[in-house]
């Protein structure tokens, strides 16, 4: 299938981009409110997890979840890791999220807690919570039917992923 080939090459290049992005992000985030980049990594055994070390301090340097895992490719095993994000404020209170990664793939996203400004825990319903970009990238399908993005012009369409997809469809 041409579709797979086209998108496969696109995805292949993303792994490279992640590294560049993270390098750039560390600088940027020092001025931003601490969002999803400030995550802490837990051990490599199944099910273990730690909570994000205090949402207070400096958001910048500890940003990337450590060394080795700069590529999104699956590691050998079924070991599972959990990452807990720093808490982020919404107009309704603060919220935190935990993600689980198994064999290099994102397997679960759990909103941890939401507290209102009185400090009480409240029911999680539908809040947008931070999620680690690297794990989002590693979660993508190898095969999409359509591409969503902010509106392109008819000229820009020709260089868009949607155009590649449509072309692949025509020639398959």
């Amino acid at each position, binding site marked *: 299938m041409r579709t797979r080939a086209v*998108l496969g090459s*696109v*995805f292949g*290049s*993303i792994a490279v*981009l992640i590294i560049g*992005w993270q390098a*750039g*992000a560390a600088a*940027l*985030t020092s001025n*931003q409110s601490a*969002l*999803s*980049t400030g995550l802490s990594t837990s051990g490599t055994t199944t099910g273990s997890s730690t909570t994000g070390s205090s949402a207070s301090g400096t958001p910048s340097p500890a940003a990337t979840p450590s060394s080795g895992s700069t590529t999104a490719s699956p590691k050998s095993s079924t070991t599972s890791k959990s990452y807990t994000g720093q808490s982020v404020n*919404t*107009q*309704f209170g603060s919220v935190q999220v935990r993600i689980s990664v198994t064999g290099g*793939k*994102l397997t*679960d*996203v759990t*909103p941890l807690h939401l507290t209102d400004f009185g400090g009480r825990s409240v029911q*999680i319903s*539908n*809040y*947008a*919570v*931070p*999620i*680690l*970009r690297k794990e*989002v*990238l590693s*979660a*993508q*399908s190898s*095969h*999409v*039917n*359509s*591409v*969503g*993005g*902010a*509106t*392109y*012009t*008819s000229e*820009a*369409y020709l*260089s*868009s*992923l*949607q*155009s590649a*997809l*449509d072309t692949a*469809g*025509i020639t398959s």
Partner: protein
Amino acid sequence: MTPHVFTTMGTAASLTFGEHEPHASVLVEVERIFAEYDKRFSLYRPFSELSRIASAELAMMDASEELRDAYALALSWRESTRNAFNPHRPDGVIDLSGVVKALAMQAAADVLRRADLSNFCLNVGGDIVAGGESAEGLPWSVGIVDPFDRSGLLTSISLAPGREGCATSGSAERGDHIWRTAESSGEFVQATVVADDIVTADVLATAIISGGPGILDLVTARWPVDVMTVDLAGAIRMTPGMSAAMLADLR
């Protein structure tokens, strides 16, 4: 399955079917719907009905029912989004492009269903309305473009049954129908909203870009929609439903 590609409203549209190819007359009808909306509402056409209102040649009270209905719809969205979605340009011109494309997409989807084509995916300039499932018998899978590298994808999601609309707005979006509200910090560079219908998805994606984090919270609390945002630093946020749609697409 061969997608049907055509240009309209200054962008490109692509229509894919999950089953048998439709009769050619259905495709003609779909294109006619877009042409009709464009002819009436485009501000790029000096003699469109909306352009004539902008130039004060035509009064709103004398406008067609279609135009007044679209304007009333846009105003009701302005109300419910606390002005984050606003059909009034800063220069006073009424610009309905924030609802018109989605209304045309909705009308096209209705035409397809009436023609007994319930499995389809229509992408117009990066916004999607989809029904049923793909030719593989799976939910439609939608890749979301990376706003920092538009030749790459951020992730992909599955459109669950009933989740027919998926719209993405960006701060660098073409055209000028997004104006930031005063309280917006301009923090989000891209917002994707999945909703039961494309009009809701499109309007709310625009509102989040225009209104910033405060409106994001309003949107996720008030409407049953799934949202993914990317901020200036590249950080991503997702609602639980959007995370689930992403996980459902792992295959």
